[in-house]
């Protein structure tokens, strides 16, 4: 009774769970244009994920995996379905997520091993794969109700059916580490722990030992995506778009959302997107006022590009941005390989490259 009254009061006064507030990009998240100014390394048809073995860059592009040694691309794997996640295995070979519904090992000593369900539930939106040194695979299954492509539907229906699963390479075992996550998207091994991004909750959680979902990074002003280890400790965390008060408002308006999802083409929903500015029908145009023909970089974004460098403890050390007036939006993966940071801007189907040393010199000195 008291809880119901409190909810009602919160809704009336716009506070508590009904507060339409968004954290600010400041401190280490202070915006810059570094991602926007980054060199384009490659432009591809349908890039989905990046991986590295420390010497080469691997890109999941459509149904194949490309390996880049310097600028030369070689196809190292070809499958029958779209690859939605890729990881290099420590003892050779690749682990790939296929269309979100299957995880398969290609090459190496465990070639051909595959999983389509975990804990009796089928994989639905497997979107990130991480291989640990002790022969496990960590996989995030974004949602149990919406397939990989329909992530926006999952957000708009306030999906909380994501999970993080562990797959055994040697024994083929599989178990759920955690479920009921608000869109699990991206994972990494952090010592004995497992870190997992919970996109709709804007945080990174740690699991392992006593830690049952301990937030290591929380209240991010963005929707986090994949995690990758950084060369000198810590992690690269990407975000495919950032939060706005308008979207937060829509997320709290059930009737509006239901009707919008029923009647409007998903491309024109008031919802985050991987790219924007493609048609005048997109929402948020009103906020994108131009001054003397220049798009305001601080306008509320529908799409955004962001990479964060995390310390081993989860503190954001610095960040790279492509702001509203930029193009390199929808960043879903970043990996560091031989001193270069490769960033996948899915919104533009581009891979960007930046020298880590240059970035740190620019931002930290």
């Amino acid at each position, binding site marked *: 009774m008291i809880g119901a009254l409190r909810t009602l009061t919160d809704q009336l*006064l716009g*506070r508590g769970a009904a507060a339409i*507030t*968004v954290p600010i990009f*400041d*401190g*280490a998240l202070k915006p810059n244009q570094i991602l926007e100014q980054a060199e384009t390394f490659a432009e591809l048809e349908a890039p989905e994920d990046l991986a590295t073995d420390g010497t080469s860059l691997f890109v999941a592009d459509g149904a194949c995996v490309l390996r880049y040694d310097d600028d030369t691309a070689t196809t190292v794997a070809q499958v029958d379905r779209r690859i939605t996640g890729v990881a290099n295995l420590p003892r050779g070979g690749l682990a790939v997520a296929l269309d979100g519904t299957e995880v398969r090992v290609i090459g190496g000593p465990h070639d051909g091993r595959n999983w389509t369900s975990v804990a009796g539930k089928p994989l639905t939106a497997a979107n990130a794969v991480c291989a640990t040194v002790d022969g496990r695979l960590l996989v995030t299954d974004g949602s149990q109700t919406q397939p990989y492509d329909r992530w926006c539907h999952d957000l708009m229906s306030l999906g909380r059916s994501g999970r993080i699963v562990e797959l055994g390479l040697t024994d083929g075992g599989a178990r759920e580490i955690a479920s009921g996550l608000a869109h699990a998207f991206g994972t990494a091994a952090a010592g004995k722990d497992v870190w997992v991004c919970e996109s709709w909750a804007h945080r990174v959680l740690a699991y392992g030992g006593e830690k049952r979902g301990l937030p290591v990074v929380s209240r991010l002003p963005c929707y986090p995506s994949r995690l990758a280890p950084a060369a000198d400790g810590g992690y690269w965390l990407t975000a495919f778009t950032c939060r706005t008060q308008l979207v937060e408002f829509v997320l709290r308006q059930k009737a509006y959302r239901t009707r919008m999802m029923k009647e409007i083409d998903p491309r024109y929903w008031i919802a985050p997107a991987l790219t924007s500015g493609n048609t005048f029908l997109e929402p948020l145009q009103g906020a994108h006022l131009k001054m003397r023909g220049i798009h305001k970089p601080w306008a509320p974004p529908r799409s955004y590009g962001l990479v964060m460098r995390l310390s081993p403890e989860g*503190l954001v050390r610095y960040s790279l941005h492509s702001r509203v007036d930029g193009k390199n939006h929808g960043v879903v993966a970043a990996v560091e390989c031989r001193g270069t940071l490769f960033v996948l801007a899915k919104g533009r189907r581009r891979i960007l490259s930046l020298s880590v040393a240059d970035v740190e010199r620019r931002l930290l000195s």
Partner: protein
Amino acid sequence: MITPIVELRKATKKYAGVPAIEDIDFALLPGEIHTLVGENGAGKSTLTKAMAGVVSLTSGQMLIEGREVRPETPVQALHLGIAMVFQETSLVPTMTVAQNLFLGQERFFNRLRGIYIAAQQFLQSLQFDVDPTATVSLLGAAKKQMVEIARAVLHKAKVIIFDEPTASLTPEEKKYFFDLIFNLKARGVSVIFISHALEEALLVSDRITVLRDGKLVVTDRKENFDRARIVQAMVGRDLSQTLYGQRKSTMRPAGKRVLSVENLRMAAMVKNNSLSVFAGQVTGVFGLVGSGRTETFKVVAGVIKRDIMYGGEVLLHDRPVRYLVPAPAVRDGIVYVTEDRKVEGFFETKSVADNIYLGLLAKLRGKRKLVSKREATEVSERLIKRLNIRAISKDVKAIELSGGNQQKVVIAKSLVQDPEVIIFDEPTRGVDVSAITEIHQLINQLADEGKAVVVISSYLPEVMALSDRILVCRMGKVVEEFSALEATEEKIMYAAIH
């Protein structure tokens, strides 16, 4: 030879046998702008209060245009043509601006509308943006100061004494103020101007007098002074390198985000403001008066309340908090060191020790059933020593201390609460140069200890000298953020104005 409009000969004022000023010979010439500078406790305020009839001289003479006078009250001094604008405002907080302006000039029948119109016209003629119908208690420090100034000008005084008038004014307001002073001078009014901002003294004065320890050190024309000479005369040592002058060449790395403000709203003053404060850093907040910087942090600390509907959120360690009064904020580790120490900072009739101990009691709330005199002594002595509060004893009343030491008491009262987030609002306002240095050292020390420190200041060199990151507020929200290394005065001011 020109007859001074006000002259003091061998002026001495003693409090309980201790001289506040001693054997001072001072002359103010007609149409002159004369600046008094000196550390807090040097005797500037006592000297001017004697002229304004607030205190009586123990010995010595006071002459106005060659005629010996002895004003016993401010009203008598006003009739002799001397008005004083006090450092700590003397306005009636429950009255409106217009009522304060015309206080003492009431007629038998007063038409309120007429008073408001007259006040509006008068304030506009001074280019002061103050609403005459506003209640004074609701005004910020700068606007209260403006009303004080306007009141003195309205009384057509021949001598106007300004005690630290620019401490809380923004750069534009200062410019208006200086124009006003020059205007008064052109009309033959003499001005005594007390300031700690030496650049201002060098800018506006005709002559400068330096006081130290109640004695006059030197009086000379402005042209014969430079900053170093004034500082040397004020403190008897060269402090020019330790104050404001240095910009930070390194910055502390940000620790964990301790405090977040998200889309905060508070009436017309704070408009959708968002910011973060990190552990182990000094976050400087700069903005012109009315930019909402003070109000934002007052909401954070529970001093004032945010809007009841859609007022945004304040988060401490990512946990939403909402303080309706400061006590729970203090218990959670957030303290606010006020910009208006006399009104909000301490109990002026209580001793230094009591004031400090009250800070601890506020934190402990019900955990101390009985007040422990021994604990009070221990706590206050520790903090008096740590902050180097110069008082004859810990039992001296706070009101009897100089401005700098009063400020240290306010800070001590907050530090005794062992806070995690410390918000300093104008920490060196009306504070002498040596106390400024000590307060700055303390602020840096707190950040080095890992505390999240916020410094709100109108004084750019102070913000730049202290801050690891600088937030600039304008029209109720943070509009720009600079790291200590990239900030310049021009960039900050541009962000604050445009």
